[in-house]
């Protein structure tokens, strides 16, 4: 599935793995699994992929509002 494929590409980024100390077993296999992740950045990426891969993709402003709300609360 395209969402999974793209998410995997983003999750395999070396900078991300290094900075957030993401272990291989912490990496979700699907975007659906990622949406349930406790790692904030993983979940943020999953939301991003989920929204941007929709056929009726939201505007960048709408996306920001959604991500901001999530991060303001969860990025501790």
């Amino acid at each position: 599935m395209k969402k999974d494929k793209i998410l995997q590409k983003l999750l395999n980024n070396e900078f991300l793995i290094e900075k957030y100390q993401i272990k291989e077993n912490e990496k979700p296999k699907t975007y659906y699994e990622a949406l349930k992740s406790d790692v904030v950045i993983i979940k943020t990426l999953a939301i991003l992929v989920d929204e941007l891969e929709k056929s009726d993709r939201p505007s960048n402003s709408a996306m920001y509002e959604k991500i901001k709300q999530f991060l303001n609360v969860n990025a501790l």
Partner: protein
Amino acid sequence: MIIEEIEIKNYQCYFGSKVFKFSKGLNIILGKNGDGKTKFYEAIDWLFSDGIEDKESLFSSKAAFNMSNGDSEKVMVRMTVAQDGEKRTIRKHFLVTKENDELDFGNTKLEGIEETSSGERSLVDGSRLRDLIFDSRIRQYSMFKGESELNVFDNKDALNNLIDLFSETKHLDIYVDCVSEMYNKADRAVTADAKKNKSNEKKYSILEAEINKLKIDESQLKLQISNIQKELTKLEENIDQASSLVDNAEKLETYNKRISKREDKIRDLRARIAALESYTTNLYDENWFLVFFEPIYNEFKKKAISFSKDRRRLMAEYNQEIGRKKGEEEAKKKIMESIPLPIGTPSQAHMEEMLDEELCKVCNRPAEKDSEAYQYMYQRLQEFIESQKVTKTEDDDDKPKKLFQYNYTTKLTAISDIHEQYLHGIRQIDIDIKDTFDFVENRKKDLEEQEKELSNEYEERSKIVSSSSVEASSLTNILKNYNGFQKNKAENKDDLVRYEFDLKIIRQNLNTKQGEKDALDNIQVDKFLLNTKEILGDILKVTEQTRSKEFNDFIDKLEAISNEIFKKTNKGSFTGLIKFYKIPYGDEIKLDIRLVESSGKKFEGNSAQVTLLHISVLLAISELVKEADDQSYPMIMDAPVSNFDEMHSKLFFEAMKSSVDQSILLLKDYVIRNESTDQLEIKKEFDEIKKDKAFWIRLDEPYENELLHTIDTQIIEL
């Protein structure tokens, strides 16, 4: 997608309806020049294009010729393909009617027909179906007319199209744009919150202003760098174009200079020869006429010496004679004057008396006339008389004349002596003449040699010009331009280094100021806003890096597959490697594909290698298409192998067969005319090609070369 059928009806040389039934794999259409191969390719191209068309030129001349008033004919190209389990047909056509001896051309229509596996047929929008069957972006990597079109990356948009089609790079642009905007919003939220705190308001404002200025500087520098990179790419292209000719241009200039110098030398030699060859002038001006004087002089001298010698001898004799006579005279005189005759010596009268009486009165013996005694007395008398004669003195008229009174011999000797002095000079004339002749001969040899060399150089120069695709005058300009391009390139590179250094400094300053601002933010701004900004910043970095990696991976993959195919098609010969160079072109990247040695050193392959390089890249693209779209598209190529030898052709066919699900190749090489039968036939070598289907297209005979309405291409399935 597999093309099952192509029908061409009344299209140019295809009179009536002609149907090609293709199969999967390698399909080959053979035909000699002018028999309809290119028209086949153009018919497909027409089917897929929407441009302005000259319908009259598309309509078969033979069909037009056969029409009567009131008749109508259809011009049509139809393609039926198998795709996604359906049979899909697109057909493009227009109607031609004849009224009052005038042809009328109807509107062009494009129709689509879909037929499901169960046989249900439905008429659909032709344009939509056409794009579905064979997307124009894919077609640019699938249809080629001749080798010159094979280098698809000559067009800088080709890479972007390819990336759009087959890699996630373009798709990831959406992520980068979206996250970038989100990050900027988060940054602005942080700034707005920070400004609420008045304690560091001034410091914060200064920092903000400095950051904004640095960002503007950064943006301007990036623009300048982008422009320089574009300029550099253009210069590289120009240099590349010129470099294929610059060797010839340099050689031409060298030959021009050499020829000019040699022509000067020849002119100089000719002038010198002409000047030296004025021998007649030299005869008098340089006294060359005296060159044969020495033998004459020698003869003269010999004679003068001889005369002188004779003169001396004669003079001696003369003097002796004179002396003798003088002595005699003096003696006689003395005798006469002082010495008495000896006793017993008869006097003259006595001797005359004795002769008369024929009696010697000295010895008293008879001396008859004619006797010996008589003769003796007579002789003595004559001697006596003679001795008594007085010799004439010099003053006397009968005195002997003076010998050599005009002194000619002495004069001759003097002349000879004078000439002797000139002999050295005269001998030098001989040497001068010899030297001059030798010199002229040598210069003539030089001239001959120079003219020979000049002729060779003219020939070499014309070879250089004829081997170049441009005229001699353009070649000279190319060299000038080439040097100009190189100079500009060097200057631009210097500028680029300088700007990149400036950019680095600006970015360092920006980071410092940003750090200072972040430090203030940390003190003054709500933590959650900062966390949101930081995470969005990280996500921005992740998306940008992923996009960049995606692009690089795609190019690496394309390069790897291309090399795999290239090796296969070049089996048994030196290949080198295909290397994709990513060249910055403003904000974009341009691909430059080159052959390199394993050491990475670039080299120019021969024409067959270059064609194979392009074909390998196209086949690699075809494989990527197959992987990305989960379906393949046919390759249609007109005359792709005209510069291949037999071995390369064979390898090429094998590669086409193994790499592409369907290919249609139009070839001319295997049709020959049998000289003994004067009939066209297919070469035996064609049997060795592993193909799936083959056609031979040829003009229906008889036809007349100069009458288009006799032309009709026939299809023979082999």
